[in-house]
């Protein structure tokens, strides 16, 4: 497959179409969707981590003026609705037996298993009445022993969360050849081991989740506006599997979505509950989560404890890598949550480095916590953290230079294409060049002076790098549909879902570039089951890779049809017609026809050859990706640590990414910088922390720290563009998640470098001032 180079569109920093709407306050987010005479819903959530529901008394609440409907688990049981299914790509234990999938009903039935689990739905005339009614519902809980940490959950004697999952284990997993890994370990001079924590965090899009459901009793059809990133797949699940109303009866739409990062990918209980309520009440029902509820009920991400071992020789040559992870799934499977610690974290083990053998194994237990589901990267940040932390740790243990260790072991470009030990098809790239460029741009010459300046202030300065390898994901198919409207506008509908990434601009930029149309003539539609037949939504950095390729493919098909129309007019063979800069022409003649002219001709049969029908330029096509792409890159980071207080200032940040072709650098860099901020948040401050009784301690923005403007360094982002992939039509590799894949290890490596003179070589994330201060104190105490 040849990569396609457009004359226009690719490489332009097109300013965003959606910005004017957002900047003037005219974006339409879920809380801006209102239906006449709508009722309001709120969810009563469990205050208990693990308890039997002995009884629920709703009589007082139901009697409150303005209360319209209360639904409890017992009511839900009688509806006959099915549980929310899980779609993990890994579904069997190592021994071949089926994974354990407990029933995830939209409301807790008989027992609650995490704080925040929906226990009852209250619908009333106003939100205030909902709140008052929830206060009046009496739930009698009988507490059960609970367990929130995965390492505790798999111990003998731990509280058992599901009868069907003995030992709390949902799934186990392995990838790689253990015999080859063991032999590599046996042959190597050293084996270095580090236990590390990938802390539980949550996506925290600034717009909380919400939905509005409507039901038309005349037609039996439902409409659901939902702040979701995955409209088509979730429609199918909600309509066909859970409610069994038939997907043709559910029109699913996402309005403007205020951030997602994976946290709005899954099927959640609340939209299902309000669809039910809308049908019962024959009235639209609106539900908006508040932020504190979001911390309790938005799916969480990461949360792995891992034992990582690297085998290497005296000269620094890597021989083998072994990672044993335990990933905390929470109380249910999530939509694809159990894939993250298993398959998701396995594929990029070892990064862009040569190894004789790699073996990855994981156990995924249930705990009494909110379910796990994808958060930006979903497995690749974990894989990157494993390899890039163990390299620095091994370097510290063996007195080696972590930069030299990487340099020595990077896979050389001449080894590509190759299949990695974990089965990834690494087709192209130049890891040594990307790495050297990362070092080159990170101002190493000025470093010694900056160290001196820091020392003069009593501060410790450190430098850290990471060389990440990641892979795209998400649905392999995408649709792009182009309809030329009578008013001269061009409707472009794509099944991807932008929640801030700028698809409205970049997909239009591609279409305009391919066809030679004006950006302002393009009307963009997405996230609407009426706009496209299929839609893979958001996830796995697939927007351009699959969605952009679909736009490109549809554009090419439109051009081919246009050529036939032009050939018909010029009375020549279609293969004589060429297309360039928005014009069809026959070389060596004066025959030219603009694309606009062709579009205007397409509805009149007289203008068309026999094999074309009116409307023939209105084309929808589905692009299907064969093999996932391999973005890669280098991160470098400088930090200053105050040893007296443990506070960390990230003082410089440099990145070189290989995303293949860069279509819109401004948007790509926006993705990278936003990802770095989320990675910095995970590394330094963010932590979803449950206490021993299963209460969420970090349940508000007062307690869960997000990076603010003054926490962030100035970032320098550069691109290696000499290795476009041939796996898709644009040569792109996916930019959305890379920032938060590379940032955590680069930052932690820099902090450990700053603290090496104290003998501090590892601290588990998040590196809060308290932990850093304690690590220094403890290291000093043990000398």
């Amino acid at each position, binding site marked *: 497959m040849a990569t396609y180079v457009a004359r226009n569109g690719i490489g332009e920093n097109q300013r965003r179409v959606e*910005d004017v709407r957002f900047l003037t306050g005219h974006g339409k987010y879920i809380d801006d969707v209102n239906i006449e005479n709508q009722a309001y819903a709120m969810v009563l959530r469990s205050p208990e981590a693990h308890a039997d529901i002995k009884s629920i008394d709703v009589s007082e609440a139901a009697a409150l003026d303005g209360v319209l409907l209360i639904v409890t688990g017992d009511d839900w049981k009688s509806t006959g609705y099915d549980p929310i299914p899980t779609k993990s790509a890994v579904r069997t234990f190592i021994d071949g037996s089926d994974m354990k999938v407990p029933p995830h009903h939209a409301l807790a039935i008989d027992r609650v298993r995490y704080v925040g689990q929906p226990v009852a739905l209250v619908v009333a005339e106003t939100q205030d009445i909902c709140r008052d009614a929830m206060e009046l519902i009496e739930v009698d809980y009988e507490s059960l022993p609970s367990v929130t940490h995965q390492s505790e959950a798999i111990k003998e004697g731990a509280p058992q969360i599901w009868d069907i999952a003995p030992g709390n284990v949902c799934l186990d997993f392995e990838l790689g050849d253990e015999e080859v890994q063991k032999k590599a370990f046996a042959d190597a001079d050293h084996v270095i081991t580090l236990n590390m924590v990938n802390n539980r965090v949550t996506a925290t899009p600034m717009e909380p989740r919400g939905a509005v459901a409507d039901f038309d009793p005349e037609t039996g059809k439902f409409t659901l506006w939902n702040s979701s990133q995955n409209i088509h797949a979730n429609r199918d699940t909600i309509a066909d599997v859970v409610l069994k109303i038939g997907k043709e009866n559910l029109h699913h739409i996402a309005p403007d979505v205020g951030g997602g990062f994976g946290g709005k990918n899954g099927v959640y209980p609340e939209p299902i509950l309000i669809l039910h309520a809308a049908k019962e009440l024959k009235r639209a029902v609106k539900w908006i989560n508040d932020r504190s509820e979001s911390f309790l009920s938005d799916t969480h991400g990461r949360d792995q404890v891992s034992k990582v071992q690297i085998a290497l020789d005296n000269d620094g040559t890597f021989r083998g890598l072994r990672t044993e992870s335990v990933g905390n799934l929470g109380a249910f499977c999530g939509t694809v949550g159990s894939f993250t610690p298993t398959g998701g974290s396995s594929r990029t083990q070892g990064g862009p480095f040569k190894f004789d053998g790699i073996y990855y194994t994981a156990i995924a237990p249930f705990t009494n916590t909110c379910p796990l589901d994808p958060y930006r990267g979903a497995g690749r940040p974990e894989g990157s953290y494993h390899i890039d932390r163990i390299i620095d740790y091994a370097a510290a243990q063996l007195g080696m230079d972590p930069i030299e260790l990487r340099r020595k072991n990077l896979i050389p470009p001449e080894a590509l294409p190759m299949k990695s030990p974990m089965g990834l098809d690494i087709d192209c790239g130049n890891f040594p060049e990307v790495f050297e460029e990362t070092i080159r741009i990170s101002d190493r010459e000025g470093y010694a002076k900056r160290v001196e300046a820091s020392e003069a202030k009593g501060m410790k300065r450190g430098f850290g790098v990471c060389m990440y390898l990641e892979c795209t994901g998400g649905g392999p198919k995408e649709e792009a549909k182009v309809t030329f409207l009578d008013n001269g506008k061009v409707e472009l509908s794509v099944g991807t879902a932008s929640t801030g990434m700028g698809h409205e601009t970049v997909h239009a930029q591609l279409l305009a570039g391919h066809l030679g149309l004006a950006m302002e003539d393009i009307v963009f539609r997405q996230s609407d089951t009426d706009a496209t037949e299929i839609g893979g939504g958001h996830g796995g950095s697939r927007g351009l890779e699959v969605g952009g390729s679909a736009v490109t493919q549809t554009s090419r098909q439109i051009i081919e049809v246009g050529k036939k129309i032009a050939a018909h007019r010029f009375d020549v063979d279609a293969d004589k017609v060429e297309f360039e800069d928005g014009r069809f022409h026959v070389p060596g003649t004066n025959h030219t026809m603009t694309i606009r002219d062709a579009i205007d001709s397409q509805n009149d049969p007289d203008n068309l050859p026999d094999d074309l029908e009116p409307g023939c330029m209105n084309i929808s096509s589905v692009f299907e990706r064969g093999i996932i792409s391999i973005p890669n890159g280098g991160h470098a980071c400088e930090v200053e640590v105050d040893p007296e207080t443990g506070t960390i200032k990230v003082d410089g940040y440099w990145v070189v990414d290989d995303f293949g072709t860069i279509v819109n650098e401004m948007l790509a860099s926006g993705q990278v910088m936003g990802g770095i901020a989320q990675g910095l948040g995970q590394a330094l401050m963010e932590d979803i922390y449950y206490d021993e009784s299963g209460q969420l301690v970090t349940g508000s923005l007062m307690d869960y720290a997000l990076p603010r403007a003054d926490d962030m360094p100035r970032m320098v982002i550069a691109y290696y563009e000499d290795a476009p992939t041939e796996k898709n039509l644009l040569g792109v590799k996916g930019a959305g998640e890379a920032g938060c894949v590379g940032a955590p290890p680069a930052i932690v490596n820099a902090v450990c470098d700053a603290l090496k003179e104290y003998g501090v070589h590892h601290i588990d994330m998040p590196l809060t001032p308290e932990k850093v201060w304690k690590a220094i104190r403890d290291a000093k105490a043990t000398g």
Partner: protein
Amino acid sequence: MPAITVRVNGLEVTKEVGARTLLSTFIREQLKLTGTHVGCDTSQCGACVVTLDGKTVKSCAVFAWEADGADIGTIEGLADGDKMHPMQEAFREHHGLQCGFCTPGMVMTAVSLVENNPDIDEDGIRHGLEGNICRCTGYQNIIDAVKTGAKAMRG
């Protein structure tokens, strides 16, 4: 229910408000100005920032009745007809927004920061925006936008 009279983006309105109606709810639901967003319930995120008698406030932390008689500015009142405010232009030019949810509060805060300190430097901007959380951008483009917006506002 008591009535309050406020000037919003230059227009005077009188509305009845409930005792526990927040200013953010009043602006969004009674005035239908939905550009002011609510992103949290602890006055941390800043998506709901408006001006109240010329000072920025988090409108989720003020009761509507407290604003009686006040002059309120929201994001909808910033542009001059179809011509965006220089700060709005600068945010677009620098890609200082992605999902757009924090943006109205961010822009309102930025305009106020610059009005109070026309020569504000990068450190000043970073500290000045501490009460506004953006989860998408990593802030760098916002900082650059505020610098450019400040320059344009200085004229």
